[in-house]
């Protein structure tokens, strides 16, 4: 009973958000005036033959209802991309692992690093190093991914040539598993560095602010008075309480992160969802744009719902409240 009550609101919220997205994606094309299939593809790089045009038109303008549309979505029937000559779901699933690899690694690394640095900075509050660190992170927070990404590309890929400038792996290379891993890691370095530069400052500043507040509370004073070693006070007692704001803010930051990942992938031509979306937009390939947008949005929603769960695990007070 209790569990049901606790989960009802968030599940309902995210479910309605998903339905809003799906409905918008279902309804928007039909709201366009006139024969938009001809209009859209007239300015595109894709030339349609009569049969393809008919299939597109029926995809967008047939009389199927919303429930049927949802059923199609669930069964991976997301339409056909005439630009790439492949089903949308296939293209999406091909690109997805690369995005997950890039974003997942960037997120885990920047959270861990930001948390650790933030805690250490708060502990050394007032020192020269801490002030320099906070200043540097605030400046970094002001540099958008577009800018840092392009700069890294210019310097380390095009000018110095230390890292590959595009792609996720060497094409047609005859690699052993070890060589392949090195190759993938090399390709990953620059986009990953860009994303970490973008995510790290926020995590750092948040962890530091939380930690500074926690350090003033009485239980930390007690822990210190007991004569516990400083590292134990810092991590076992204080830091775990400073972790919470980092997790709560995750949901709010997630939409930003998706935007950043789209841009960064495009800059480095990384073959993930961002690049696929970029190409789909450039070629006005609407079913593909629709599929990518809808399913990335649903992934974001699922991730956020998951975070709510993690949050109650980390802070039992949340579960007991309300």
């Amino acid at each position: 009973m209790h569990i049901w009550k606790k989960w009802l609101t968030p599940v309902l919220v995210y479910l309605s958000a998903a339905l809003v997205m799906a409905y918008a994606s279902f309804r928007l094309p039909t709201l366009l005036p006139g024969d938009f299939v001809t209009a859209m593809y007239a300015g595109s790089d894709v030339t349609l033959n009569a049969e393809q045009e008919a299939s597109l038109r029926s995809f967008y303008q047939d009389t199927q209802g919303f429930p049927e549309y949802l059923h199609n979505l669930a069964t991976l029937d997301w339409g056909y991309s005439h630009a790439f000559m492949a089903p949308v779901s296939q293209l999406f699933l091909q690109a997805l692992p690369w995005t997950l690899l890039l974003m997942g690694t960037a997120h885990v690394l920047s959270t861990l690093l930001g948390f650790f640095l933030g805690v250490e900075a708060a502990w050394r509050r007032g020192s020269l190093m801490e002030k320099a660190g906070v200043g540097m992170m605030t400046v970094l927070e002001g540099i958008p991914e577009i800018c840092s990404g392009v700069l890294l590309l210019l310097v380390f890929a095009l000018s110095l040539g230390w890292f590959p400038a595009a792609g996720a792996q060497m094409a047609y290379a005859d690699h052993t598993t070890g060589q392949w891993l090195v190759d993938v890691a090399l390709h990953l370095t620059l986009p990953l560095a860009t994303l970490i530069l973008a995510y790290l400052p926020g995590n750092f500043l948040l962890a530091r602010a939380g930690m500074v507040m926690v350090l003033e509370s009485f239980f930390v004073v007690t822990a210190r008075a007991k004569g516990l070693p400083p590292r134990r006070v810092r991590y076992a007692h204080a830091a775990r309480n400073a972790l919470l704001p980092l997790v709560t803010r995750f949901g709010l930051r997630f939409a930003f992160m998706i935007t950043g990942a789209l841009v960064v992938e495009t800059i480095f031509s990384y073959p993930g969802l961002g690049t696929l979306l970029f190409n789909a937009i450039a070629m006005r390939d609407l079913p593909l744009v629709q599929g990518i947008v809808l399913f990335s949005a649903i992934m974001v929603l699922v991730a956020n719902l998951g975070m709510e769960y993690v949050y109650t695990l980390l802070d039992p007070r949340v579960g007991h409240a309300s």
Partner: protein
Amino acid sequence: MHLDMGGQIGKDPWFITGISILLLLGFLAVAGPFLVPYDPYDISFSPLDPPSADHWLGTNDGGMDILSELVFSLRNTVIFGITAGTAGLVLGVITGLFSAWAGGWADQVVMRLADVVLALPSVMVLILLAAFFQPSPVVLALALACLAWPTTARGVRAQALTLKNSLHIKAAQRMGGSGRYIIARHLMPELFPLYLINFAAKTRMAVFMEASLAFLGLFDPGEKSLGLMINYALQYYYLDIWYNWLMPPILLLSLLIMGATFVTVSLEKIFDPRLRKTV
């Protein structure tokens, strides 16, 4: 909230730096188009020229003067940010105040709606809108505002709820002040610092979003925007154009977002009593 915030904020180096950057860029955006010698849409110059006395930053692939293009792009990006920031703030303040003052089921409805809108990844909605309808940037800015109000509404509602139970509001009610009077005369002005923080944060987010959307190719390719300029310049990376074509929009965009970040961080520090201690 009746404290000497003005004096404090004037001494914060972050605020001074941030606001100076923003004022400088604001001046460029307002006056720049009258100062630059060429029309940014004029394609009559020879394309891809390096910088010269006539064209300080050279010309782009279409034979347009890059300096003129830069100034107009900055203006468009700033207009987008301010439009989205203002509209988002107004929407958020209205819904937040209404929610706090009305209470009961109206409050519940508005706040649950806010939850749903907050859960929507706004960039995805904007991409969908832009891909299908190709709206003008102003419409996109307003759409962004419609997706960005919940954070403001939540903050305003929380503050208004504590204010609602304070003595002077109770007194005003006892003396017969109507709801509208109390909201306009007491609640709204007292939350002023909150508006500043939210406006700065929203504008920053909108500028970032505009650059990203333009960069992804979702704006009319004829528009002038910093994101679009970076997109175009990057296609010619193999030519030696990075210092006169690629870097200027990158620098301006970074400065713009940095200025807004400094101001936001500084305002948050000074007006949030909990964060104040952490400075």
